[in-house]
């Protein structure tokens, strides 16, 4: 067996083993734990880069293991998988750094980082899954490994949030399970990518396949926080900031969206889904979610809550892009998968910095914080502008492709959705920026942490700055070969080529 075939497994294992080791470590070994974390993250990044080289050469390493008669676990690295894997491995590095800084001298770090790594391992599994069954396994694993992070604080509120989170995600997981099982019952084990198999099935049982599609989307939609199922996201806000970042930008929400990508492109095939008229309801729901999320965000006074609802709407951009038939829409959806990740993680880092450094949780407390924490605020501004979709931040690129994609798919009304969503985004982000930069400071900060640093501690600051810069560069040099955009274009090219 060729050595590249073991790469996906290695990518998975780096964080999994890290998790195991960290669980074994005693609570007190902080430095060792941190170094293990960072080492694992860097190692994974290296592996991912190796894997990218391989995938660019058009061969897709694969490992599989038969767990049940006729049903096997498949880890396969294709272009799409690399998109997500790349994102999460990059963001994991920074989130880890941030978390190390954020949780400095707070209890239960061993537990936290253990599950943290486990969560990333399952994200890797999701991205590298080669069939729905494998996907399902890691999808559920993700649920399990994120629960301890959500309830990490152990307060009543966080426990309640954890319960809500579980009710939603487990419910979704079960629906997904039924969908997957039904699909398997009809057509056996369908690896991602051979859509002709599905096409045959659709030919035989169109009704059933439509139902299964609905089930799958509903099951995934829970994590992707599509409208009726978005309730867990804002409540999960009680979690520590790195966790929120993880939930919103890297792992959970993205897992749902990515799953929908897989289902639409690699199970049903975009053409087929479009011909069967399965896509337009998705477009409708996504559009509604976009508007609804933005509208609810407008009413929040808590920073993280506002960000949460903005996530609800932003993730539906991805779904929207997926549901638009045509390369441009696809590019928009895929590239937003990355861009939203970068921007949102930045925003959450910054929110965390405000909370950690100055004890700011509410928006009205942000007055004049730009003077006190200029760099953090600059990063926050970048993220916010990106969310509004202003150039040159990455968000604009996604929006541009979504809009053109909508026109290409002949759904002109989507433009209205995008426009009004941007308006709402502006309406709930610009006042915040106004407060940060232009309002004078009201009184002294709620709970100021005394550091020798002007802004905040480097471990909190640097990740935010880096991700902010990345999201800026991703937009500014969108057409360079290294940009997310060109990778998304590559994937789309392979997707739409017959």
């Amino acid at each position, binding site marked *: 067996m060729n050595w590249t075939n073991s790469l996906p497994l290695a990518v998975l294992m780096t964080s999994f083993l890290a998790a195991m080791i960290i669980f074994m470590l005693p609570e007190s070994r902080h430095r060792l734990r941190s170094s293990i974390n960072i080492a694992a993250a860097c190692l994974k990044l290296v592996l991912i880069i190796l894997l990218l080289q391989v995938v660019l050469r058009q061969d897709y390493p694969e490992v599989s293991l038969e767990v049940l008669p006729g049903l096997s676990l498949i880890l396969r690295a294709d272009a799409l998988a690399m998109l997500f894997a790349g994102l999460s491995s990059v963001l994991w590095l920074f989130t880890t750094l941030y978390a190390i800084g954020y949780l400095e001298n707070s209890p239960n770090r061993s537990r936290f980082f253990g599950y943290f790594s486990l969560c990333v391992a399952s994200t890797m599994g999701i991205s590298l899954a080669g069939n729905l069954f494998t996907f399902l396994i890691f999808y559920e694993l993700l649920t399990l490994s994120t629960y301890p992070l959500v309830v990490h604080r152990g307060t009543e509120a966080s426990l309640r949030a954890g319960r809500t989170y579980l009710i939603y995600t487990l419910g979704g997981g079960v629906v997904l399970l039924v969908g997957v099982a039904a699909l398997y019952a009809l057509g056996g084990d369908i690896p991602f990518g051979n859509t002709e198999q599905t096409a045959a099935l659709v030919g035989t049982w169109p009704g059933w396949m439509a139902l299964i599609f609905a089930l799958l989307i509903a099951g995934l939609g829970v994590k992707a926080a599509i409208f009726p199922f978005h309730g867990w996201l804002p409540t999960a806000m009680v979690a520590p900031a790195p966790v929120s970042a993880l939930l919103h930008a890297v792992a959970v929400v993205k897992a749902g969206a990515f799953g929908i990508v897989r289902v639409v492109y690699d199970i049903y095939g975009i053409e087929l889904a479009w011909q069967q008229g399965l896509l337009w309801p998705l477009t409708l729901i996504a559009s509604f979610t976009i508007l609804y999320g933005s*509208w609810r965000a*407008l*009413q929040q006074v808590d920073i993280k809550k506002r960000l949460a609802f903005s996530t609800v709407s932003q993730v539906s951009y991805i779904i929207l892009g997926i549901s638009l038939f045509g390369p*441009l829409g696809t590019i928009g959806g895929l590239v937003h998968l990355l861009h939203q990740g970068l921007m949102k993680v930045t925003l959450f880092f910054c929110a965390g910095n405000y909370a950690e450094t100055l004890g700011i949780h509410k928006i009205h407390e942000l007055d004049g914080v730009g003077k006190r924490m*200029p760099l953090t605020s600059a990063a926050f501004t970048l993220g916010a502008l990106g969310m509004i979709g*202003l*150039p*040159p931040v990455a968000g*604009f*690129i996604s*929006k*541009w492709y979504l*809009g*053109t994609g*909508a*026109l*290409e798919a002949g759904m*002109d009304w989507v*433009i*209205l959705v995008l*426009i009004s969503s*941007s*308006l709402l985004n*502006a309406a709930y982000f*610009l006042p915040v920026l106004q407060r940060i*930069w*232009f*309002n*004078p400071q009201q009184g002294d900060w709620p709970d100021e942490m005394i550091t020798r640093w002007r802004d905040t501690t480097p471990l909190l600051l640097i990740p935010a700055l880096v991700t902010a810069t990345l999201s800026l560069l991703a*937009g*500014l*040099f*969108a*057409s*360079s070969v290294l940009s997310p955009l060109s990778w998304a274009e590559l994937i789309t090219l392979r997707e739409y080529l017959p």
Partner: protein
Amino acid sequence: MTLDQWLLLLTPIWPLLLAALTCIPGGQRHAGTAAVLACLPALWLSQLAYTHLSLPTLLLGSVWQTLPISQTFLLFTALLWLLSALYGLGYLQKDSRAVSFWRLWLLTLSGNLGLLVSADIISFYLFFALMTFAGYGLVIHNRSASALRAGRIYLVMAIMGEMLILSGLFLASAATAHTSILSSDLARAIPESSHAQLILFCLFFGFGVKAGIPLLHLWLPLAHPVAPTPASAVLSGAMIKAGLFAWLGLLPLGEFQSSLWAATLIILGFTAAFGAALLGVLQNAPKAVLAYSSISQMGLMTLTLGCIFLQPSLLLPLLPVLTFFALHHALAKGALFLSTGINAQYQTIPVVLFSLGMLLPALSLIGLLGSGAHAKLLLKAGLYDLPLNSLILAITLSAAATTSLMLRFLWLLKQQRQQDTTESTNTWMQLSWAALVLCSFFAPQWFAADLFTPLYQQPLAYAELWWVPALTLLISLWLRHHAPRWQILQGDMVIVFEQASRWLASALTATAFSHKAPAPAMSTKAVQAWLARLEPRCRSQIAALFGLLLLLANLLIWWF
């Protein structure tokens, strides 16, 4: 890359670099100087041959270039920004927030220059947005309540505009089947598109917000007075022209004949030209008056565009004229704005010079002297071969509007001058002001030699310019004694809208926050308790259950 290309690259980048420089501790002291230096590449570039620079990795593959129009725009934009910056050096001497002002100034500048050189819509949109949002900071610089209000309105309308523009761009790029993002290709493709009208609507009104066409002008008279004088000078002189520039770049001028749009534009133009005057003369702040005058001047340009829609062939003759008009208005209006700051220090310079400095730009704006006269003449000349002569007459009459505005302005200045004489003198301000006055006066000779024909060679046409202002002067002199003391609050319509929006917002928030969490479901305690008691009962009756089960099983077997 040649030197020209380097300059082209630096034109928008250089201000950004300087802005970054002002963020490092050392650079803060030199923020003002940075602002002055920032315009130099642009100024230089405007004097060079046309250059073209394509940056494939930037955004979606940007293309920057300079063309005849854009060079003229670059010229006066850079000039105005430069001189205003110099002026600002003095104006903001004692200002505590000077540094942040200059940072925003540099950002805005970069946006303004960038949109003039960018040939593709993406980078154009980028710079346009940069200018708009950074401009907000300039507007609300002195955080007074009125400034914040003005800023809010500015922002709201600007975002509305942005969104209109964006949708217009979406549709336009669809018109090219998403093959190209070059403005020129888009403009060419628009007429073929199935939503041509919609696209035109979006683009025209989207940029119209900047250009201050009626009903979208609301932010202007609010923003200009509250902004620091140099800022209002560039706002009203340069940034307002960005709208015009965008129209020239993106609207399918010269190949799209549409009487509908012609009518719309011409009517809007006239409404602006005269309506603004009506509102303006009833203002109490000199800067507000100037703002209204800007609106009315932009009205003339809108009108000219309308004529091009009426008769596309006019594009070629009118384009340079329009550009020159923009240049003239930019400089003259800039000079006037700067003069509002000067008035306090008149005692250091001879009164004669001072009032001359006041009068020259005013007269030129009315169209009696210098650049203004030429602009008017060229405009009329361009429009002569249009079927409707009434248009010419109307333009001539519009001088009345300007005249009355200028009179009002000067009168208000006089009032102000009598009130405060506290300010200390400052050479920077005086020098820059004087320079701008001169520039605006000799603009034709210096900057538009190709269009320039001395006035004495066309005495009749020139004479025609005189009678309207003269008449207006007499009327206003008469009015000055028995005029009703009306006045209109700044930002006329805004008050209405604000009330409406406030009411709407309250209503919405009422609905938004009214929805409570659903009432807890009917308590199931009783049921639970009953079920709980079931368990031990079954426990003690297990044998009975066993028997029952056996019976049931047998019955089942025998029945089925």
